[in-house]
């Protein structure tokens, strides 16, 4: 940094990112803009529908009021409980299936790369296919009804549960595991007494979180015939009985809120 007269001062520029980083960031921004432009160009939006929308929404809301409260006891209540059962049993089945896959996916538990990849492939595939799509599958296999819905919830949830559980396992304290291996404990004992106590809090948090989401998911499965309150919704929609639709939506809303309250309460008290 020279300030001698006649010599230009060496400029010290303040740069937040290196040239390589700037290029990378620019590439990302460019990519995002390109994606947006491409999407906007090819999307088919019919302007008439857009202008019509407020009136359509108004019409729909008008038809929803007054809400068909009397429809609840026979049309909705049993189905609502069914949805809760589907969500709970589905989550249970998912957890049971996800735990071994999670152990296989965790690099510190299973230091065999191809097993890790296989397990991760199973987990990605499971969560890439939406619950609704799984439901279509299982309705074709088991026929319409709650069994299809439960299996759909289960198979979709394996992906998330397994992924989060695997990540929790990978964060376990290496030293503790070393100590148990040094005592000559067999592999299963190391998993049971070394890894499991460490991931227990994360495990319960994951299960609770997934159950909460599954309560939401199970409500719509009936739209494709997989049981639960979605079937009541589907019937009402097909018959354009908007007041009953409103009833079903309110019932779903109430259950979802209740589930959230329960989950938050458990999380605060126990975890």
């Amino acid at each position, binding site marked *: 940094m020279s300030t001698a007269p006649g010599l230009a001062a060496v400029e010290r520029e303040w740069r937040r990112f290196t040239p390589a*980083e700037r290029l*990378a*960031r620019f*590439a*990302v921004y460019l990519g*995002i803009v390109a*994606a*947006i432009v*491409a*999407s*906007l160009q*090819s*999307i*088919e*939006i*019919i302007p008439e*529908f*857009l202008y*019509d*929308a407020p009136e*359509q*929404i108004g019409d*729909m809301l008008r038809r929803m009021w007054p809400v068909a409260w009397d429809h609840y006891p026979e049309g909705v209540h049993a189905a609502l*409980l*069914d949805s809760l*059962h*589907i969500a*709970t*049993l589905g989550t*249970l089945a998912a957890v049971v299936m996800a735990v071994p896959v999670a152990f296989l996916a965790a690099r510190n538990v299973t230091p065999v790369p191809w097993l890790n990849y296989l397990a991760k492939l199973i987990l*990605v*595939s499971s*969560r*890439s*296919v*939406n619950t*609704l*799509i799984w439901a*279509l*599958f299982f309705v*074709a*296999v*088991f*026929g319409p*009804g*709650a*069994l299809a819905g*439960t299996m759909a919830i289960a198979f979709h949830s394996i992906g998330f549960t397994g992924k989060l559980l695997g990540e929790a396992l990978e964060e376990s304290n290496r030293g503790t595991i070393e100590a148990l291996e040094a005592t000559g404990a067999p592999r299963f004992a190391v998993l049971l007494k070394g890894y499991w106590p460490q991931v227990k809090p994360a495990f319960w948090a994951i299960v609770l979180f997934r159950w909460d989401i599954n309560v*939401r*998911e199970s*409500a*719509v499965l009936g*739209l*494709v015939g997989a*049981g639960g309150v979605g079937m009541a*919704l589907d019937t009402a*929609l097909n018959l354009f009985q908007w007041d009953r639709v409103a009833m079903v*939506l309110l019932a*779903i*809303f109430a259950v979802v809120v209740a589930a959230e309250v329960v989950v938050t309460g458990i999380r605060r008290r126990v975890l």
Partner: protein
Amino acid sequence: MSAAARRAFVPNWWARAAWVAFALYVLYAASQLEFTPARFLAGIEHGAKFVARLFPPDLSRLALLAKGMAESLQIAVLASVLGVLISAPLALAAARNLMPAWATWPARAVMVLCRSFHPVIVAILFVKAVGFGALAGILALTVASVGFLGKLMTEAIEEISLKQVEAVRATGAPFASLVTYAVLPQVFSRLVGFVSYETDANLRNSTMVGIVGAGGIGGTLFAAFQRFDYDFVCTIVLTIIALIMAGEVLTVRVKRVFRA
């Protein structure tokens, strides 16, 4: 001292009771839903036949597949962008450490409402409002994004250190600069994480809103199911899985660029 009389493990009666109660519930629920071993076995057999019909995947209608996938991608991209654009100011308005109550309560109410319903339900309502097609899908997923991103962003903003905000405020900076220099740096990397997760989620959801007519590959898939065109179903599902895997890899890279 009789050491043998001391017990090594103290039984946790509450936990045991809870397990028993849960086991009873499972049996009850299974009977309510009419799960019998017979149905299961019948299903497994039927399932084996079904899976056989999935393979080999039908590759003859790739143009149809591509059109549907492209539409799903558009829905996902636009929904994510709109979602971010709307939820960013909304989350800022909902931050209780920065904003007064008359701003935070309505903002939070909007976000909770957006989150309360499953995207499919929202899609059905939008189909009624703006007709079949991708627009309904975009709007539905935008609503879902706003609910999800808004909540997470608000939490992130509420966790920042106010000392930095104070410091910038003391320089007399206008609100916009305050946000840029005091709030944004603290939350940016978490935001990148949230946005990339939500983009992945939108990609996943965009493949299914078509089932109710809101555009995308979901419609093609549903139609194929109804026609018992199971080998085409297989192609579509495999493509969806591949697309989402690619999406996840991409978001990991993007996160790395922004050092999230």
